[in-house]
């Protein structure tokens, strides 16, 4: 009883700092989302789903401050020709952004469609998020649906000539940002979306993704290297027949990150790959929480997560494959691995399978351990100094997850960055 009260008080405190945008075509979805938040309450420490990650700094009314990371590196995806959309501390920056015109894509700013009465995204906004609340509540996503004032809605009708790059800059120490994106891939359409940057001191992002039959979406995200930033991101995806969704997230630094992916395979022969690599040093807590539901037949899902941890860093993985009785011939795979470079770090995992169909092949694996001494010895015997050998093996460990990205140029860029960071830092 006391606990429920505590939760309610915390939820009310958070809500009291926010104002619900009124009017427009999204108003109803926002009200419904608010009511979901009020019913569920914001996450608390005793919630099973938050067993390994303390949600308090993500839910408290005022965001903890975070210093802006100073570095002289170019943004990670700068070398690629992209359509750039820039947000600064969670607010769209028209000047820094490219013109939102690109053949095969229709892009609108969320705050612009808010004032319209009719927009295609109305049928998706908050809809996929609401679907993703069962069986596990994700109140931070509902909070986002209710209160996020900015973001983009992207409708892909063809195969645009270049990727869309969402850039999240962090400038204010005390920024508390919420962004909500809706991405709809029409039948047979295909696009690559790149995301990078820390976004804010505290960042709450929710992406709703609807991929129609035969559509394809490739998402690659690099979460920025600010040490003190906090982020809770949600991704809700719904896949049609023969559609493809591939998503990779790179996280280096950040005091707290919780990335949730909730994917439903509704059309036969759909494919989803969710991958992630993270490098944590010191005060670093990284949580990947994935929930994949197989509804249709003959679909493939693949989860590959690699974590490198040192100096007391914590890595969390909670992955679930749910195979409904209709999803015969499912091919489900999940692997989560941690490489712990010293004795102070932690790896906490809960890889789950829940299966109701009999003709399926599902497997999951989890491993955790120190760097392979024999491999180190081998490299040293070949004249590689121990420190370089450690970096090399660490990189090789991470590269397995990075190579889940289909585009080799992007793989090379990320591996090159990781190499720089590891060698400079280790």
């Amino acid at each position, binding site marked *: 009883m006391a606990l429920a009260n505590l939760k309610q008080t915390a939820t009310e405190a958070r809500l009291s700092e926010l104002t619900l945008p009124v009017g427009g075509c999204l108003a109803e979805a926002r009200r419904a989302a608010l009511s979901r938040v009020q019913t569920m309450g914001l996450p608390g420490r005793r919630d099973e789903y938050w067993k390994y990650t303390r949600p308090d700094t993500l839910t408290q009314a005022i965001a903890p401050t975070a210093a802006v990371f100073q570095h002289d590196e170019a943004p990670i995806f700068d070398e690629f020709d992209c359509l750039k959309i820039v947000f600064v501390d969670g607010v769209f920056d028209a000047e820094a952004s490219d013109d939102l015109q690109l053949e095969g894509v229709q892009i609108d700013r969320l705050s612009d469609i808010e004032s319209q009465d009719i927009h295609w995204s109305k049928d998706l906004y908050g809809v996929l998020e609401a679907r993703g609340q069962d069986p596990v509540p994700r109140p931070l996503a509902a909070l986002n649906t209710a209160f996020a004032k900015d973001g983009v809605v992207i409708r892909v009708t063809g195969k645009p000539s270049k990727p869309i790059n969402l850039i999240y800059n962090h400038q204010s120490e005390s920024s508390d940002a919420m962004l909500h994106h809706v991405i709809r891939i029409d039948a047979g359409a295909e696009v690559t979306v790149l995301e990078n940057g820390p976004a804010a001191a505290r960042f709450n992002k929710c992406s709703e993704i609807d991929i129609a039959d035969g559509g394809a979406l490739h998402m690659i995200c690099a979460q920025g290297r600010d040490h003190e930033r906090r982020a809770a991101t949600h991704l809700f995806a719904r896949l049609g027949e023969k559609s493809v969704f591939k998503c990779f997230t790179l996280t280096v630094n950040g005091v707290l990150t919780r990335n949730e992916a909730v994917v439903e395979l509704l059309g036969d022969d759909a494919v989803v790959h969710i991958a992630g690599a993270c490098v944590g040093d010191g005060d670093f807590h990284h949580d990947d929480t994935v929930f994949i539901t197989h509804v249709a037949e003959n679909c493939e899902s693949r989860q590959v997560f690699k974590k490198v941890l040192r100096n007391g860093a914590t890595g969390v993985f909670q992955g679930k494959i749910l195979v409904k009785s209709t999803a015969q011939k499912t091919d489900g795979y999940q692997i989560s691995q941690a490489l712990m470079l010293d*004795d102070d770090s*932690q790896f*906490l*995992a809960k*890889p789950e399978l*829940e*299966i*109701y169909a009999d003709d399926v092949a599902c497997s*999951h694996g*989890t491993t955790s351990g120190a760097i392979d001494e024999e491999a180190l010895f081998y490299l040293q015997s070949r004249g590689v100094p121990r420190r370089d050998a450690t970096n090399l093996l660490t990189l090789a460990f991470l590269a397995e997850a990075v190579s889940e990205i289909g585009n080799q140029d992007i793989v090379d860029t990320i591996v090159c960055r990781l190499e720089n960071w590891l060698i400079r830092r280790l």
Partner: protein
Amino acid sequence: MAALDQTQVKEGIDQETVDAVREVGGAYKHGWATDIEMEYAPKGLTTDIVRLISQKNEEPQWMLDWRLQAYDRWLTKEEPSWAMVDYPEIDFQDQYYYARPKSMEVKPKSLDEVDPKLLETYKKLGIPLKEQMILAGVEGAENAPAEGRKVAVDAVFDSVSLGTTFKAELAEAGVIFCSISEAIREHPELVKKYLGTVVPVSDNFYATLNSAVFSDGSFVYVPPGVRCPMELSTYFRINAENTGQFERTLIIADKGSYVSYLEGCTAPARDIAQLHAAVVEIIIEEDAEVKYSTVQNWYPGDENGKGGIYNFVTKRADCRGDRAKIMWTQVETGSAVTWKYPSCILRGDDSQGEFYSIAITNNYQQADTGTKMVHLGKNTKSRIVSKGISAGHAQNTYRGLVSMHPKAKNARNYTQCDSLLIGNKCGAHTVPYIEVKNNSARVEHEATTSKVDDDQLFYCRSRGMDEEAAVALVVNGFCKDVLQALPMEFAMEAQQLVAISLEGSVG
């Protein structure tokens, strides 16, 4: 041609599986009841009932105080709801907490004085209560050539222990094997020292309930350096209606000792579900080893999910000394609901824990079972092999924890949990928790879910085996890792059970 054959196998497979196992198996074999005059405590749970149980067992005051304290704690606790099992709310006041055959009112001095009707019950179950060299738990074994192995049996019938065989011979070796009620009276110093030290009174809702109302169970003490001269076993039988069985087992393996303990259980087929909440505590000192094997065959309910035993069990072994070793092996085929996680606390350096499990659910059975391996000491090792088979409308969940504490340097764990589904109305789930807090610890977890493998079947058939034999072989092969870990007597029974419990799994 070969391809065509293969396709036919694929289409026919589930039906064939069922047919094959139906051939081997039958319905639940132990569903009959013993007609005997019983003495009950009044229904419901109050401090008076706790006092009554204590008084019936002629317990000293300290034991009663312990129970009453547990009862107070129980009142403040809530029933856990996290397991993937779904059953109607249990009315804890609508149960009998104590039932004993009238003939047991005056304690028989030996098994010879026990009511023949009761002895007949165990004979019918195939449990030898005579001190003779026969295999336990296997029907028809009386006619089989004796292996020269002895098994001492403690027979628990509803709330009381009827007696224990081979007591004298065990005493000669220094081994104490008796009912827990007797141990409380005869060996209070041992019970006081160890009871509740592995599973604390307030550990969980059901363990707390058990601490308040446990009526009987077995007690084992193996002194330092003694290798127990025979296998010990307890056979639990629930007979009375609306009666819960709450047994408590306490096993202490002192320094350098060894004991193998077997546990079996059955109950009559009744329409109303019955409650079973047991606690097993095992203490293993330096260099000692305990093997604990269970064949759980409580009444699973009928094919529509009516009746059956609700089995809520807390089992835990504490490897206190260095190089202590525990091996849990379980074959779970019975019970309507199973909630059971035999666990290992690996406290001593170089201690080892092993957990081998087969859980088979059919019809409307639900099993949520697994283990906890808590690595506290250096160089501790654990191994988990779990096989879940789900058929009919059943739900089968593996739930486990592997925890590597910061001081558990060079600890190792290997976990493998595989699930097999027969039919598409059942479910197989895996919920492992892995917590690693030092980098020299190595953890490996693997899980797979599949159906009976067509290629394996095809291979067996191409070697001239008929389909029924092939399916039986594949299913038994799936369970092989676990069956091999069982003592021989149990392995035979378990193999039969594997077939029987899948009976009627489709259609």
